[in-house]
């Protein structure tokens, strides 16, 4: 890893942490637990397009650890990871397939995050009824995924010029 790349990944990780913090300050419909803006995904998708899935996973992991240590606990870290792993896996596969632009990749990531967390929640309480929140969460994942996808497409395009 060269110095420039280290610096850029560090900067984007910091960006992801800030976005995660801002996201915590803006609650969206508290009656649907787990519904959130998905802002950190902006940094993750950007890294995915600037570099590759490996770097995106690194930034995502660093962000979850820092947010978890600052505001959460071991439980919240594990729960965040359950969403991030599914989301990243799906986004990495979709990007490899090269069928969609950033919007498509990001929206599948958004939906994947909610999917992963619902499955984790169902395992934790040993009851599939938490799927009650499935549809509203998928809808919010879709909407925020599309918006984040548009943004990160622009950010990645501009940053690519700086990097090269």
């Amino acid at each position: 890893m060269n110095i420039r790349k280290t610096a850029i990944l560090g900067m984007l990780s910091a960006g992801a942490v800030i976005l995660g913090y801002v996201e915590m300050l803006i609650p969206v419909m508290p009656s649907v637990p787990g519904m959130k803006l998905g802002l950190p995904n902006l940094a993750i998708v950007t890294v995915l397009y600037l570099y590759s899935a490996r770097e995106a996973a690194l930034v995502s992991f660093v962000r979850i650890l820092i947010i978890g240590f600052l505001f959460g606990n071991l439980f919240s870290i594990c729960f965040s990871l359950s969403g991030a792993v599914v989301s990243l896996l799906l986004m990495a596969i979709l990007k490899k397939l090269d069928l969609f632009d950033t919007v498509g990749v990001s929206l599948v990531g958004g939906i994947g995050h909610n999917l992963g967390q619902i499955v984790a929640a169902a395992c934790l309480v040993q009851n599939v009824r938490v799927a009650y929140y499935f549809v509203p969460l998928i809808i919010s994942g879709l909407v925020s995924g599309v918006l984040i996808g548009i943004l990160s497409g622009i950010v990645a395009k501009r940053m690519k010029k700086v990097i090269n």
Partner: protein
Amino acid sequence: MDKKKRNTLLLVAALVVILGATVLIQAVSKPNDNASNDMGGNGTEDLVKNGMVAVIQQEGQVLMEVSLDEDRDFIVQHPTGGYNAIHVKDGKICVSDADCPDLTCVRTGNAYEEGQVIACLPHRLIIYIEQEK
């Protein structure tokens, strides 16, 4: 238009159609429910008994079933320490207080319709509404 953009638009359109249909079906399949829950707002003391029970399950085991037609407050303790205070009033149930770190269960608010769920993941607690048998 470039191919990736077209594919993405198709994906978004497909998802919107599927989700829209799901929401519509859900909305259509329970209008009777809302009618019976509607108390008309005429200030009568008698509450409409709608025969809903809340099942409280912890660590995979059903702890109790409480009728939503009786107002009550109680506390559910978690074996490793920690609690959730449950509040039942006017046919609705909510977690009024808890010592879990995220307080998602408290923020979820009231549950009263069949199928609604309140979950407290740190305490492995789930409350779901069922029609009384």
